[in-house]
């Protein structure tokens, strides 16, 4: 008959208790084997290296079918990957527009936008990315304070700057921009030949075509600064000297923009995007001028990155500056000599230069 007394022998209890106690102690001991050894910590250096390569050697990517570079595209959702390099052919040469946008704390949500577009991986890594350009006193930084233990990589880079031109008195005289008739309205034209800038040879003869992207001027997306100086110096743009210029002798009437479509003769008027309203600075003032305005000595036209982005990349761009005279006289005028060319000639334009720098990526 079955025994239903439900009495366990004491020895069985003792044996089972010893076993159970040992088991519980080992079960609490085993997790300490994993202390400080989680799988994320052993690959911090690998993640830092990967992020360093993505930032320093890749130009970044937007969603397919978007032609605007990621640093100028307004909607963060369509930026798939960050990358600071000028192009795939120029690793370690960074574009200043991309650097500005990447480190801009208001453009991106910290830290998720950076994790999805530069750090990658399932684990939510913390990071600190910093960039120092030689000669500048402040660093670009994004991220948290560094802890004691972290994965690290350091990349040496160069940062590509913008081009600019200074049309001084000597250039005006040597090119004959002052050799005109006495008229009340003089027009000075600057031509930006976009297809030459984007596809033409930078040096003649060709030496190293792979590295050319690092020195290319991109008129649609670079900042372009045109300084016209020495207008009151001698030899005067006006062949009949009237030194010094009286305040209302000369004024700038207008600045108009045109583009030259390929295969069509004649120019098409271009209205710049309304968000770029201020680009004319007269006589060294830091306050932008509203036209018409009086002119005494110099004029600066500063076009922000993206100013010419609405113009097709193969169309040449013409900037016509109209000077109004109180009485008919000669002044800066390109009608007889042809427009001033913004190209790769170092006498015309100060070419983009590369500044040294270093970038550090820490991941933990």
């Amino acid at each position, binding site marked *: 008959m079955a025994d239903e007394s439900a009495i366990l022998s004491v020895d*069985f209890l003792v*044996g*089972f208790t010893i*076993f159970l106690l040992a*088991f519980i102690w*080992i079960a609490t001991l*085993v997790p300490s*084997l*994993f202390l400080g*050894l989680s*799988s994320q910590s*052993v*690959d*911090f*250096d*690998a993640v830092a*290296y990967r992020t360093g390569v993505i930032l320093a050697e890749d130009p970044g990517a937007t969603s397919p079918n978007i032609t605007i570079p990621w640093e100028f595209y307004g909607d963060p959702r369509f930026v798939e990957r960050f990358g600071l390099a000028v192009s795939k052919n120029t*690793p370690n040469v960074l574009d200043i527009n991309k650097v500005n946008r990447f480190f801009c704390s208001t453009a991106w949500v910290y830290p998720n936008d950076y994790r999805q577009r530069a750090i990658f991986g399932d684990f939510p890594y913390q990071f600190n990315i910093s960039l120092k350009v030689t000669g500048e006193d402040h660093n670009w930084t994004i991220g948290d304070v560094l802890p004691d233990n972290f994965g690290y990589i350091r990349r040496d880079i160069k940062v590509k700057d913008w081009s600019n031109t200074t049309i001084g008195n000597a250039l005006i005289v040597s090119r004959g921009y002052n050799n005109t008739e006495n008229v009340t309205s003089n027009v000075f034209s600057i031509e930006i030949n976009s297809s030459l800038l984007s596809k033409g040879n930078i040096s003649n*003869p*060709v*030496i*190293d*075509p*792979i*590295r050319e992207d690092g020195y290319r001027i991109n008129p649609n997306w670079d900042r372009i600064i045109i300084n016209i100086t020495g207008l009151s110096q001698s030899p005067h743009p006006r062949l009949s000297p009237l030194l010094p210029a009286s305040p209302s002798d000369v004024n700038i009437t207008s600045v108009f923009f045109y583009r030259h479509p390929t295969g069509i003769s004649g120019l098409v008027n271009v209205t710049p995007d309304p968000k770029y309203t201020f680009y004319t600075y007269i006589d060294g003032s830091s306050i932008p001028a509203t036209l018409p305005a009086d002119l005494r000595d110099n004029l600066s036209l500063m076009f922000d990155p993206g100013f010419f982005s609405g113009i097709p990349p193969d169309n040449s761009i013409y900037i016509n500056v109209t000077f109004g005279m109180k009485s008919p006289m000669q002044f800066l005028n390109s009608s007889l000599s042809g427009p001033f060319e913004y190209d790769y000639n170092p006498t015309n334009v100060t070419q983009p230069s590369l500044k040294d720098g270093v970038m550090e990526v820490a991941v933990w």
Partner: protein
Amino acid sequence: MARLNDDAQWIVLMGFVVSFSLFFLAIVLNQSVVVGQTTAEAVSEFPKDDIRSVRDVIIQSVFLDDSGTTLNRTHVQNEIQRLSLSRQGSTVNFSSNAIAGYTNVYIHYNNGVTIYNETWTY
């Protein structure tokens, strides 16, 4: 002979089960540590900078001229192949032709572990 009483052997069996699972966990843990190290080894093994540098100098050599007694292009291309083999342990073969205004450069690189082929057009 009386049969051995093996009623309590299940306790020892439980003990064995726990120890075997401990061994298994320890092996898994041991293998997981080498993840970070293998990544660094793979990065060092792939000759990214070697390929970039030799590709750059090959393309520069295509744009040199071969005029006069200083046979620039011939000398430079010969030196690239010889030095690449003796100092970097890699064979580099390349040739170029010009068709319809475009220059094509065909590059082959092999360092025993990595093979790289490229047709570069300009």
